[in-house]
C-alpha cells in the first residue's frame, strides 16, 4: 500500500510497467470521483455557501484579507517554483517556524517592565529597554522580519554546504525555534487565541498595515522575477554553468532567500506557521504534474496558487475553518486532480 501511494505521488513514469500506470490512474480517478460525489450530495449547502460568501465580501476585513492573501499566494508560488526545483523547499518550512518563535518572543517582550530588569542597571537604561520591549510587543512585525531574514541567510549557507547536511541543520534550527516559542508562550501568556491563530492561521489576523506590506512585497517579487527571469532560470537549472558564465549565483540565492523570508512573515498569520510552507510548495508541485516547460510551470503555479487561495478562503469563511487548513485542502485537491490528468495522459 505504501508502495502504491508512493507511486501515485511520484511523477516518474519511466521504467514503470503499463499495469502500474493503470493502477495509479484508477486510484487517482476513484479519489476524484469520491470528491465529486460528495460535492453533488452537498450541492445545496455549497450554493448557500456562495450566497453567504457574498455577504462576507461586504466586510472590510474580508476584502483586506482577500487582497493581501492573493498577493502573498502569488509571490509564494513564483518563489516556490525555484525553491522546489533547487531542493530548498525545507527553507520555507524552517523559516516559518523561526517566524513563530520570534513572534511569540516579541509578544512576550510586552511583559518586560523596568522593575523586572536587573537592579544594577541605571534606572534610565532600564526604562529605555522596557520601552523598546513594549514597542516591539505592540508591533512585532519588524522584529520578526529582521530575525527571519537573518535566519534565511543562515539556512541558505547551511544548505549550500553539503558537508553540513543542510536538511538536518534546517530541521534543527526550525524545531529549536518552535520549542523556544512554545516555552516563552507558556511562561508568559499561555496558549491563548493569539498563539493558536499564529499556528493555524486566521483571516482576522490580517491588519490594514499587512495589506500595504503585501502590496509592496508582491510588487517587488513580481518585478524582480520578471526582470531576472532568464538569469533565475539559468541559476535554477544549472548553478555550476550559470556561475561559470558570470552569473552571480550567490547573489540570486540570497535574493530568493530574502524574498522568501518576506513572503513567509507576511503570509504566516493568514496561513499559520505550520502551513505557510504549503503555499510555497504545492502550486509548483501541482503544475509540474501537467507541464514540462519552465515558463508554463511558472505561469500555471501562479494561477493555481491564487485560485486555490480564493476557493480555500471561501471554504474557511463558510465553514469557519482555519484559513490555512482550508487553502491547503484545496491545494491538495488540485494536486490530486493534476496527478490524475497526468496519469490519464500516460
Amino acid at each position, binding site marked *: 500500500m505504501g508502495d502504491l501511494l508512493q507511486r501515485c505521488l511520484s511523477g516518474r513514469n519511466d521504467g514503470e510497467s503499463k499495469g502500474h500506470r493503470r493502477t495509479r490512474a484508477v486510484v487517482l480517478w476513484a479519489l476524484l470521483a469520491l470528491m465529486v460525489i460528495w460535492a453533488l450530495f452537498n450541492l445545496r449547502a455549497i450554493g448557500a455557501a456562495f450566497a453567504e460568501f457574498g455577504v462576507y465580501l461586504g466586510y472590510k476585513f474580508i476584502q483586506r484579507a482577500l487582497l493581501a492573501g492573493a498577493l502573498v499566494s502569488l509571490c509564494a508560488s513564483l518563489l516556490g517554483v525555484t525553491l522546489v*526545483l533547487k531542493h530548498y523547499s525545507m527553507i520555507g518550512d524552517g523559516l516559518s517556524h523561526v517566524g513563530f518563535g520570534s513572534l511569540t518572543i516579541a509578544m512576550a517582550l510586552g511583559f518586560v517592565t523596568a522593575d523586572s530588569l536587573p537592579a544594577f542597571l541605571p534606572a534610565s537604561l532600564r526604562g529605555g529597554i522596557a520601552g523598546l520591549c513594549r514597542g516591539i510587543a505592540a508591533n512585532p512585525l519588524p522584529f520578526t522580519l529582521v530575525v527571519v531574514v537573518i535566519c534565511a541567510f543562515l539556512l541558505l549557507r547551511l544548505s549550500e554546504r553539503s558537508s553540513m547536511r543542510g536538511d538536518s541543520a534546517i530541521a534543527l534550527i526550525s524545531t529549536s525555534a518552535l520549542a523556544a516559542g512554545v516555552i516563552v508562550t507558556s511562561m508568559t501568556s499561555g496558549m491563548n487565541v493569539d498563539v493558536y491563530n499564529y499556528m493555524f492561521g486566521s483571516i482576522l489576523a490580517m491588519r490594514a498595515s499587512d495589506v500595504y506590506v503585501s502590496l509592496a512585497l508582491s510588487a517587488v517579487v513580481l518585478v524582480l522575477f520578471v526582470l531576472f527571469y532568464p538569469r533565475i532560470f539559468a541559476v535554477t537549472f544549472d548553478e555550476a554553468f*550559470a556561475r561559470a558564465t*558570470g552569473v552571480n549565483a550567490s547573489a540570486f540565492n540570497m535574493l530568493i532567500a530574502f524574498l522568501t523570508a518576506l513572503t513567509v512573515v507576511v503570509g504566516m498569520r493568514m496561513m499559520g506557521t505550520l502551513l505557510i510552507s504549503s503555499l510555497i510548495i504545492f502550486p509548483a508541485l501541482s503544475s509540474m504534474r501537467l507541464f514540462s*516547460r519552465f515558463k508554463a510551470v511558472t505561469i500555471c503555479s501562479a494561477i493555481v496558487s491564487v485560485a486555490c487561495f480564493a476557493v480555500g478562503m471561501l471554504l474557511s469563511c463558510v465553514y469557519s475553518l482555519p484559513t490555512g487548513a482550508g487553502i491547503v485542502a484545496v491545494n491538495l485537491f488540485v494536486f490530486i486532480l493534476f496527478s490524475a490528468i497526468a496519469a490519464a495522459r500516460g
Partner: protein
Amino acid sequence: MSLIAMRDVTIAFEGVVAVERVSFQIDPGDYLVIVGENGSGKSTLIRAMLGLVRPRSGSVVYGDGLTKERIGYLPQQTAAQRGFPASVEEVVLSGCVNRMGRRWFYNRADRAKADANMALLDVTRLRKKAYRTLSGGQQQRTLLARALCATDALLLLDEPVTGLDPAAASEFYAVIRNLNREHGVAVAMVSHDLGGAMRDANKVLVMNRGVDFFGDVEAYREAFAERMVTRRG
C-alpha cells in the same frame, strides 16, 4: 597566443592541496584530454580555469580575446537536472545569459544563436520537447548546444560521456570532433574513457595533483605505451 595559460597554479581547500604547481596552456584549435585517477585534481583544475576557485598561488591568464565568462562549460550532470521541467529551447537559450550584459531579456541575436546551435547539434526537432524526457545522448547534445551559445572559442567538458551507452558516447565524440575540426572550437575534456577521448585529441594532460605528463598525443603514446599495455592486461 594561448586561449588559457595556467602558470604554476596551486589550489588548496582547507589546507589540503588539490592541485600543485600546474602549468600548461590551451591554444586555439587544440583538443586537450585531461586524465588522471579520482581525486587527482582534474575537476578542480577545470573550476580554476572557469574562475570558480581562486588559486592559492600562480596565475590563470586568458588570451586571444577570451574572458572567463566566454568559456563554454559542460558540467557533470546532477540528479536534480534529470527531472527538471524545461524545454530544450529554454535550456539552450539559457546559454546566452553571459551575452546579456545589462540587458534584462534575450534579444533577437540571442535567439538566432540558440537556433543555429540547436541546428548544429541536431536538436532542432526536439526544441519543444521536455528536457527530462530525452535520452542521455540527447540531453548531452542539448547541454552542448547551450555551452556553444556561451562561446565559440573554447569548450570545457567535465566527463561528458559518463552514463552514456557506447553508441551514444561514440556519437558524442563525433560531434565534438566536428566542432573542433570544422568549426575551430578548442576543446578541453576531463575523461575516464581514455581510448575514446584520445582518438581525436592532439594533446594530453595527465594529472596527479601535479602534472605527470603534458604534451602531444604521440609523445604520450610513446612514453606511456608500456604502462597502458600492462593496465589493459
